[in-house]
């Protein structure tokens, strides 16, 4: 009976979904171990929200084998619902109720009991910095407050799997950081988080594993550092005033790539201070004058653009 530890929080294979002729999800496989944070990253219209809607029992799949918290969303929706919390892209709060009433509503629907409901609502108001707004109607809330309330409402029953569908879309940087910290605290508490986002920084900041979704297909999957390795490595770009300096520098760094029109030399580098200092020392020793220097470390943007942006040109239409 010790299969529980081995059981993934979310297991998906061959997930397909079409709206009429439009194929939104075209054979997705996902595996999210319990207690980890998984990010589904992709541009608008890639199928992220549809994936969350299917996994959270809101809509049905056309095909595929699904398990969420060990249950099939299609045949045992209530077992899945009892284990999950969902915070959507469009906030799911009752605008006509106050923050506290919204949380009490959730507590009542989870049958928390008379004493526990007030206690749980107060805890969450405190933790999500909504105590001051507890008695204000949600319709008057800022975007950040609304999203915090939305997340707090998903947590009333302490779900083991939490779906966050673009939790910070449309938020200002400060609210975004606040929300990130709240999400990190959740992970520390041992829950599994399934996050969708179009922000690479967000996936990089929060997730242990990232899958890149584009046009309903997964185009890459791995840890943030594995994904970064998929694109050409970091380098230092040196710009020179003249062709003579460029020529001298190119002889110093035979593994560099010279661009004689732009008068630049691209030298592979990890971008660290130590290697930069060594590089500059070599140039100084050879009395080569550098006009401009820039350091480029690969980030997920490179992965994103190289795998989704250019994919449009090379993809054979299905």
């Amino acid at each position, binding site marked *: 009976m010790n299969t529980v530890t081995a059981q993934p929080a979310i297991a998906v294979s061959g997930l397909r*979904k079409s*709206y009429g002729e439009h194929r939104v999800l075209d054979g997705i496989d996902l595996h999210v171990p319990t207690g980890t944070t998984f990010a589904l990253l992709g541009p608008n219209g890639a199928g992220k929200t*549809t994936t969350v*809607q299917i996994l*959270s*029992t*809101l*809509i*049905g799949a056309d095909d595929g084998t699904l398990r969420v918290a060990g249950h099939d969303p299609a045949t045992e929706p*209530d*077992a899945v*619902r*009892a284990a*999950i919390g*969902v915070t*959507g892209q*469009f*906030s*799911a*709060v*009752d*605008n*006509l*109720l106050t923050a506290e*009433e919204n949380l009490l*509503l959730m507590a*009542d*629907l*989870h*049958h928390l009991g008379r004493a526990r409901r007030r206690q749980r609502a107060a805890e969450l108001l405190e933790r999500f910095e909504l105590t001051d707004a507890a008695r204000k*109607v949600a319709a008057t809330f800022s975007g950040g407050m609304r999203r915090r309330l939305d997340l707090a*409402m*998903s947590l009333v029953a302490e779900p083991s799997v939490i779906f966050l569908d673009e939790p910070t879309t449309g938020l200002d940087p400060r609210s975004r950081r606040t929300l990130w910290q709240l999400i990190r605290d959740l992970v520390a508490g041992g829950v599994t988080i399934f996050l969708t986002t179009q922000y690479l920084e967000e996936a990089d900041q929060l997730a242990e594993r990232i899958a890149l979704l584009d046009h309903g297909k997964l185009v890459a999957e791995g840890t943030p550092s594995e994904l970064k390795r998929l694109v050409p490595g970091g380098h230092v770009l040196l710009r020179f005033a003249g062709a003579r300096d460029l020529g001298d520098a190119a002889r110093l760094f035979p593994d560099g790539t010279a661009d004689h029109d732009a008068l630049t030399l691209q030298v592979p580098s990890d971008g660290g201070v130590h290697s930069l200092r060594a590089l500059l020392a070599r140039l100084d020793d050879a009395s080569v004058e550098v006009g401009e220097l820039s350091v480029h470390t690969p980030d997920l943007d490179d992965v994103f653009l190289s795998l989704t942006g250019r994919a449009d040109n090379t993809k054979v239409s299905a």
Partner: protein
Amino acid sequence: MSTLSLALTDSATMLRRNVKHMLRYPSLTLMLASMPVVFLLLFVYVFGGTLGNGLGGVDGGGRAAYVNYVAPGIILMTVAAAAQGTAISVAMDMTEGIIARFRTMAIARVSVLTGHVVGSLLQTLFSMVIVVGVALLVGFRPNATPIEWLATLGVLAMITFALIWLSVALGLAAKTVEAASNYPMPLIILPFLGSGFVPTDSMPAWLRAFADYQPFTPFIETVRGLLLGTPIGNSALFAIGWSVVIALASYLWARRLFNRDPSR
């Protein structure tokens, strides 16, 4: 927890939610109550003198007779107006993100709808109290005993329950809030095409055939009989029959609409 007690608990929770909405934003409730009041005053003071003379009753005709004749029709019109309000509330609610959240929670799904139904039922009874109060002020003189008043309340609650389930279904079927406010329009017209404002025997034969058999005529005749002692005949049976049929069909339709996969 058993399925039934789960459904009752969740329905009570949803009812509290809907009642809070109504108390916090009372404008819709007041609008629903004022519409039949306006019709009552219009029919009593503008048309009442002439229409009352045409009733040919024993009580001398005129405005005083017409108040008594028209009040039951206006009370039923209150139900029809409230049904329109329910359809609007339901359609508006369905556009809110919170409904998607409810759909991803392990709750008795029907409670979302029963919360609306019971909330609207209370809202309608409130409107009816206002309408009856105004009717009494302008000369409505029912001769009902307390038992008959109680029976009237029961009959009105039964009819309201049925029509509200219908409007919940209409609100769910509507693709927009505007459409939801139009769908129940025929319910407002039906008291006119029945015995609400004039006796059906004053109508041309073809219209009378419709008027005598549409649900609002037995509804109105039953209430009129209970409050004023006019003959009820088999109207009560028809009123019960129509209510059961409308309530059951509408409940099944509404439940199917709410449970359909939103992606299809």
